[in-house]
């Protein structure tokens, strides 16, 4: 009985992406996965797959950035009266915050992988995922830009405040932290795409 109602509503062309009873009953096992069921179900599965891939693509840079800065430790072979001859992420609170935030974001990406394949009817789950993605994007952006500010001061110094650019001595440390900041900004970009895609999918259902 529910089939006839849905078939009737398909004829009205109110929304092209209804995938309920008629769609599931029409799919058979010999139709390719992405092309199954009518009305745009294939497109939704494609978007779900892209969502999964993007989540993994956001997990990798955050984890790499956290590990890279966490293992940064450079000792100089020289020492003077004014400079300490060792640089680690501990010495800069911004980098500690960066590691923590990126670790949280990487953990969240892994935990949200199963939820990203939620069905189109579960709008509450999708909404929760969207809000968590937005919060994570804000967090990772904050961490990345705080670390970027530190890296900028370490590279250029500041004439007015008499802050010496330490990168002139600590080459390896500076390279590592710069690379980690870039990776983190990449993750921010991917998270932004994820948010817009989630909003698009919500519009379709």
């Amino acid at each position, binding site marked *: 009985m529910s089939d006839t109602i849905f078939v009737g509503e398909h004829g*009205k062309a*109110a929304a092209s992406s209804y995938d309920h009873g008629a769609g599931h009953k029409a799919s058979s096992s010999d139709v390719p996965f992405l092309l199954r069921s009518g009305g745009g179900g294939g497109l939704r599965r494609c978007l779900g797959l892209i969502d999964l891939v993007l989540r993994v693509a956001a997990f990798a840079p955050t984890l790499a950035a956290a590990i890279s800065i966490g293992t940064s430790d450079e000792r100089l072979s020289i020492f003077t009266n*004014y*400079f*300490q001859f*060792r*640089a680690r992420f501990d*010495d*800069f*609170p*911004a980098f500690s915050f960066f590691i923590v935030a990126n670790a949280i974001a990487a953990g969240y990406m892994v935990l949200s992988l199963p939820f990203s394949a939620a069905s189109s009817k579960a*709008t509450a789950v*999708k*909404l929760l995922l*969207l*809000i968590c993605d*937005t*919060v994570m*994007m*804000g967090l990772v*952006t*904050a*961490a*990345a*830009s*705080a*670390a*970027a*500010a*530190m890296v*900028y*001061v*370490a590279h*250029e110094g*500041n*004439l*007015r*405040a*008499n*802050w*010496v650019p*330490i990168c002139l001595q600590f080459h390896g440390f500076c390279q590592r932290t710069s690379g980690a900041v870039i990776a983190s900004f990449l993750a*921010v970009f991917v998270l*932004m795409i994820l*948010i*817009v895609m*989630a*909003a*698009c999918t*919500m*519009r379709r*259902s």
Partner: protein
Amino acid sequence: MEGSAEHGETSKAPLSKGISKGVSILDVILRFVAIIGTLASAIAMGTTNQTLPFFTQFIRFKAQYSDLPTLTFFVVANSIVCAYLILSLPLSIVHVIRSRAKYSRLILIFFDAVMLALVAAGASAAAAIVYLAHKGNARANWLAICQQFDSFCERISGSLIGSFAAMVVLVLLIFLSAIALARR
């Protein structure tokens, strides 16, 4: 058009329309709050200027926001976000009147996300520099300049509050737009 799609919901139609209108009105109010926050932050940071009555050989005796490039980026980012929010205010007012808008809400979510990233970047970079100015860094031999420039430091610390509040408000705005999209 409208009656045939809602044949199962005629008893709930006024309530759901009321909720949609409430969501849109909350959207407008939150945009106002974010406009005020970013504008106040940009102005507070942009008008910093402190000249010390004494001078030494090592430290300059004048501090402005433009001496630290990160604070310049903060002012610019907050100005851009403020301008965007002012420009998007008419669009969200239109959403109050016409709740059936689909694509404009999506565009609004996209730009809100971009502006969230921008304001988060500006606010947290400035926060890192303000922390550095307050505490200094023993390892890198960076002096805490707040010990001399206390009114400058107070100003730059206080102007961060409006920016962080605008960041939270932008997250709420994205959430509200998503709710409005999901309720269709």
